[in-house]
Structure formats: C-alpha cells, structure tokens
C-alpha cells in the first residue's frame, strides 16, 4: 500500500514537472455517513443519472418532480444516456474523481465499483432515510460488497423462455409448456423447424449464451464461479455443453447464425425468425416493440432431470450513491424515494424489473402482471443468486461472441473452450 502511494506520488511529481497540473486520479474513501446533518432549509442540489430511452427519461422526470415537491429545498439535476455510453462516462468519472450523487446501477458493475470504495455504504441510512423493511433480505443482499450494502435493488428479473403464441398458431404447433428436459425442448425445436419450412425456427442457438451455460451448470449443482471468483467449471464441462449446440445446429433445429447476423441489432426472436428465445423476464417490452407483437408468453426454461434451485432472481437494476457525495442524507432520501416508495412502483411499473416491494408489484397490470405470475410460478426453482466477479460483463460478451463465431463456422468447440479460458485468465486475474 505504502509502495503504491509512493509510486503515485512520484508519478504525480513527474507530471507536475512536465506541465502544470498534477494528475492524481482515482479512488475515494469516505464521505457518506460520517455525520448526519440534513438541514431542511439548506439549498441542496443533487445529481441523478441513469441509462435508458426517452420513455424512462419521462418516468424519472415524473419522479423527480414529485421529489422536489416533497423537499422544496432540494433540486435534482438529471442526466441520462444510452447504456454503453453511460458506463464509459461513469468509469471516466470514477477515475477522475467525479461520480454523481445518485446513480442507476447494474448488477455486473456493483462489485467493480463497490470493491474500490466508489460507492457509499447505505446500511447507516437504514431505518432513517432509507426504509428497506419491505424488501426481502435475499434480494437486498444482491447489493452487498464486503459486508456492506452499496446499492439497493429496485427490481428483479429471472431467466425465462419467451414464446410467440401467434406465430406458433400460424404454424399449428403447440406451445412449449415450460420446464421439462432439454430433450423435450429439442423435440419442440424439431417440431417447429418442420412446420416452419426454412422460414421460422423454434429457437435460437441457446448454447451461445452464458446464462444458459450457468443454468446448465446449476442444474448439476455446479456454478460458474466460486467464492474466490475463480472458474468453478472445467474445460470438459464447457465442451460438453457446447457439443449440445453442435447437435442442434447440425440438425438445423435453431435459426442459422447467418440469419441472426443479418437482422442485428434485433434478435432472431424479435425479428420473428424464432418462436421462442430465452432472456431476462422483463425484456418482453423490447421484444414486443421489435416484433410488433401485442402479446408474448413466458414459460420456464428446460432443466436436467433431478435439477433443483437452478434459477435465481437477479437484481434487474439498482440505485447507488457516489462515495464522495456532499449531501449523503439528501442522496439517501432520493434513493429511498426511487426504490421503496409506492410512487416509484406506480411510475416505473416493471420497466426496471419486478419491483422489490410487494406493495409496488401488486399494482402491476397487463404484461407486467404476467411477469409477476411467471416469477411466482418458478418460485420452487429459485436458488441463491451468484455474485458476479469483477469483469463478468466482459466475459458474458466474450461468450456471446464466441457463440456467434461457432454458429458462423469460424471456430470449433475446442477453439471456443481455449479462447474462453484464456479470456477468463486475462479478465479474472
């Protein structure tokens, strides 16, 4: 530690010598929760930021107006952008020492930012500014890093199989009932393939998604990573899983990857090439917009015989506070307003996942209510949620990438396994 600091000092000195400004970057320490001094008359400005489309911007706008009405002394400045840009900006800010007060957060980044002390611990606010009494302890713990809660989940989602009933009706094929074995699902794929006649398939290649691999591992009582964030599976595990894909691809049971490439940025399911596809259960709105369908149904993904607790509820989105905020109490109040209040349930619906509080999720209607029903239906299969290691997002992307490459015939299963293990080596160390 001393060593690092010294080097940093030398670096800073060297740079000062070159020019004018010392570039010390980075990491923060304390700030939040040291002393509680919220003065209702003090003029406070908070920064609030999120990623999302125009629709979400309108929803946050409504929330901010309501918050400002409730606390006239607080002004909330908002900022929003698309997902990749959002994280590029947050990382730059984190490096440069300027994270916003309140941020929408993604599960895959909680450890990354939390472990480096960039997020304020929220436990100190519990019972005062933040009321977590209505949030399930298991859900809440998803925002935990090193024993402290640094982010509050606002909604959950789970892995699910979407189906297009209208398309299935046209083909005269029965919908997949959900659950069952992988062989059952493959039989369904074969049936749709036959009826689809080279235009419609039963699904897209599921072996290209790390979520399916994880599911398959969990069905055998294994997991992707162990507590030390090391891979908990072997090369043989991965190869065996990928060989399932070889089978369905060679038999033409899934949409050829070639077709999928052509319809990007949409997916095979969103562009009506497939009658089913797995994704997070709250992505229905996106699928509907892509495909123009009025309704889609949700069923449970297939499993290995005897599997249990293979699925899990993942926080779809969280809210966190920057460690260096000047107004920790006010930021905590805004966080509470955006996460646990009835108003937040009303305004956001299921657009940030199924709301974590019962009161909010009970008010959902239409497609949102279907998602609630789905999550209730799989309750028996829900196990503990894993903690994604730092760099999980990159690995997820790499897996998808390699899956596409296999589908295009550019690499073999062995290449996939080698390259993925190499990448894990690079990312996790």
């Amino acid at each position, binding site marked *: 530690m001393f060593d690092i600091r010294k080097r940093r000092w030398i670096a800073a000195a060297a740079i000062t010598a070159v020019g004018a400004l010392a570039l010390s970057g980075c990491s923060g320490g304390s700030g939040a929760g040291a002393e509680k001094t919220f003065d209702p008359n003090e003029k406070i400005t908070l920064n609030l930021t999120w990623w999302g489309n125009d629709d979400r911007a309108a929803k946050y706008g409504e929330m901010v107006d309501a918050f400002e009405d409730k606390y006239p002394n607080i002004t909330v400045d908002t900022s929003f952008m698309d997902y990749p*840009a959002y994280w590029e900006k947050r990382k730059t800010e984190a490096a*440069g020492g300027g994270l916003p007060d309140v941020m929408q957060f993604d599960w895959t980044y909680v450890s990354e930012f939390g472990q480096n002390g960039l997020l304020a611990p929220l436990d100190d606010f519990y019972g005062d500014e933040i009321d977590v009494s209505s949030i399930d302890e298991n859900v809440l713990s998803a925002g935990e890093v090193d024993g402290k809660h640094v982010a509050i989940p606002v909604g959950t989602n789970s892995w699910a199989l979407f189906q297009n009933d209208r398309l299935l009706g046209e083909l005269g094929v029965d919908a997949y009932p959900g659950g069952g074995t992988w062989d059952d699902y493959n039989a369904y794929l074969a049936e749709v393939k036959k009826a689809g006649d080279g235009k419609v398939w039963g699904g897209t290649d599921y072996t290209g998604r790390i979520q399916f691999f994880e599911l398959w591992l969990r069905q055998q009582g294994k997991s992707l990573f162990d507590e030390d964030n090391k891979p908990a599976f072997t090369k043989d595990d991965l190869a065996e899983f990928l060989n399932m894909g070889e089978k369905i691809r060679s038999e033409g049971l899934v949409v050829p990857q070639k077709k999928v490439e052509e319809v990007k940025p949409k997916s095979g399911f969103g562009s009506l090439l497939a009658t089913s596809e797995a994704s997070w259960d709250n992505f229905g709105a996106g699928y509907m917009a892509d495909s123009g369908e009025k309704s889609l149904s949700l069923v449970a993904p297939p499993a290995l015989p005897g599997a249990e607790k293979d699925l899990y509820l993942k926080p779809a989105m969280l809210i966190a506070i920057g460690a260096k905020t000047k107004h920790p109490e006010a930021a905590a109040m805004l966080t509470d307003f955006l996460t646990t209040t009835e108003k937040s349930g009303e305004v956001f619906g299921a657009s940030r996942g199924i709301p974590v509080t019962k009161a909010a999720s009970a008010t959902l209607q239409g497609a949102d209510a279907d998602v609630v029903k789905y999550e209730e239906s799989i309750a028996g299969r829900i196990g503990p949620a894993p903690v994604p290691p730092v760099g999980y997002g990159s690995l997820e992307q790499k897996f998808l990438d390699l899956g596409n490459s296999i589908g295009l015939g550019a690499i073999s299963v062995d290449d996939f396994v080698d390259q993925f293990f190499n990448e894990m080596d690079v990312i996790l160390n």
Partner: protein
Amino acid sequence: MTTTTTGTGMAVPPPMTGPVTSQRRHPEGRRRVKRGTVVTAIWFVALTAMTLLVLYPLVWVLLASFKPSSEFGLSYGMLAENPTIDNYVKVLEGIGGVPLWRFLVNSLFVAVMSVIGITLSSSMAAYAFARIKFKASGLFFSLMIGTLLLPVHVVLIPQYIIYNKLGLIDTYVPLLLGKFLAAEAFFVFLMVQFIKGLPRDMDEAAKIDGAGHPRVFFSITLPLIKPALVTSSIFAFIWSWNDFLAPLLYLSSPTNYTLPMALRLYNDQSSVSDYGATVAVSMVALLPVLIFFLIFQRFLIQGVATQGLKG
C-alpha cells in the same frame, strides 16, 4: 496580369484545350465545341452513375425512416410496407422534456465556435511552421505530428482529470478550448501543406517593402490559402457536429447535450429500442450539415486570386 478566379479545365485526360474558361471560348470553331459537348456528356453520365452508387445507402436510410420500428429486420425491402411519419413526430417531440431544437442549437453553437477556433489558431500555427525559421520549429513539428498518432482513448481519463480539476465539467470549454489552441494537428498540418505549396515571391516582395510576419500572414498568406480555410471549416463543422465522445464525457445536463448524444437515446438495448426513431433522427441530424456543406462547397470552386504569382 490576369486575375484568374476559376480553375477550370485542367488535368483530366479528355482533350480540353488549355485552360478553357467560359469567358474565353476557343475561336477554332464548331468541331471543338462538338467534341467538348461529347466529353461533357460522358463526364455527366459517368458522374451520375457513380453518384447513384454512392447515394444508394443514404436513400435507403431516408426511405427506411418511414418504416415503423417493428418492420426493421422483418421486411427487407427498401420501402416501408406501412409507411408512417410517426418516427419524425416522435423525434421532434424531444427527449425527457428537452425539445429537439435545443440539441440542434447546442450542436450548432459548438460547431460554429469550432470553425472559428480552428481556422484562427491552426492557420497561425501553420504559418509559423511553414514560413518562419526558428530553432524549435522542427522539434515542435515532430511533436505535433506525434499527437496525431496516439489513439484518443488512452488520453481521455487524464484529460478528464484536468478539466474536472478546473471545474469545467458540464460547460462547453472542454469541447472548445483545444480548438482555439490548435490542438488538432490535422488542421495545422493541412494548412502547413497548403502554405508550403505557395510561392514565396509575394512574401519576399512584401518583406522587401518592410512588411513583418503579421502583415504577410494576414494580407498575403490567408487570402491565398482560402481553399484550405474553406476545407478546414467544412471539416471542423462536420466533425464537431458528429462528435460524440467529448460531449459524452464533458456534458452532464441534458439541456446542454449535443445532437449525437440525443440521437443515441432512442436505442436502449436494456429495454426498448426504437429503430424507426433512430433512423429518423439520423436523417434529422444529417440535414443541417448537408445544408452547411451545400453552402460552403461553393467557396471551393471559387479558386484563388493568383494575381502576381508569376512575379
């Protein structure tokens, strides 16, 4: 001495005789004129064919902007099956309470300031490199070329730290300061090349008349490199207009956003992407730069007054 203001009729294989300008038609007569017409016709046809090829993708985008979002990836045709102007209606509504014109005005402001900053500062620096002999010139020139070679992504964070320490986040200063300080080597180097291409005779003559560098710069060099200035203005405007990275890092309030930032907000891969609006907004963003180019490209054809160049 002639003042040639048009640079017509040069360089290309077809046998145009000499620098034929419209004012000075050749006296030889009809055969030449006829041959000229044929050549012109070929010229016209060739360019039209190439234009069609080059414009096809843009026409595709234009027509696609009338497709409902759900048609993308479903129907492959260029024409919408159910054409709609909803995409444009939605785009014109703005985002998150910020009207579209606000983004346009912001972009316009940044682009115009960039043009001013870049042409001023870069031409000065270029003059120094091209026309003034001093010790550090060679070293500085190498350093400047060096700045072209480093990928921008590795300097983003240190640059952000500087501007953050100066308290300039969410202002336009980080977007513009570099432009007024000739930090974009592309433009300096471009102008260096043009200035070096100029004959020195006029500089020398002016110097013998007692003119110093400032006067030579303003009254001789600047007017003569007008094509380079126009070119730089065009690039400065368009690149600033399309720049996404700097606005992303340095602007926070949506009311300060430039158009490219707003453009991306119709695409949210984590929930709903509106491809119709995405394509429509890229057309809306294209229009102002197209108009800008149409206006400015006219200056490109007005050649330079080369009066006195032959001394």
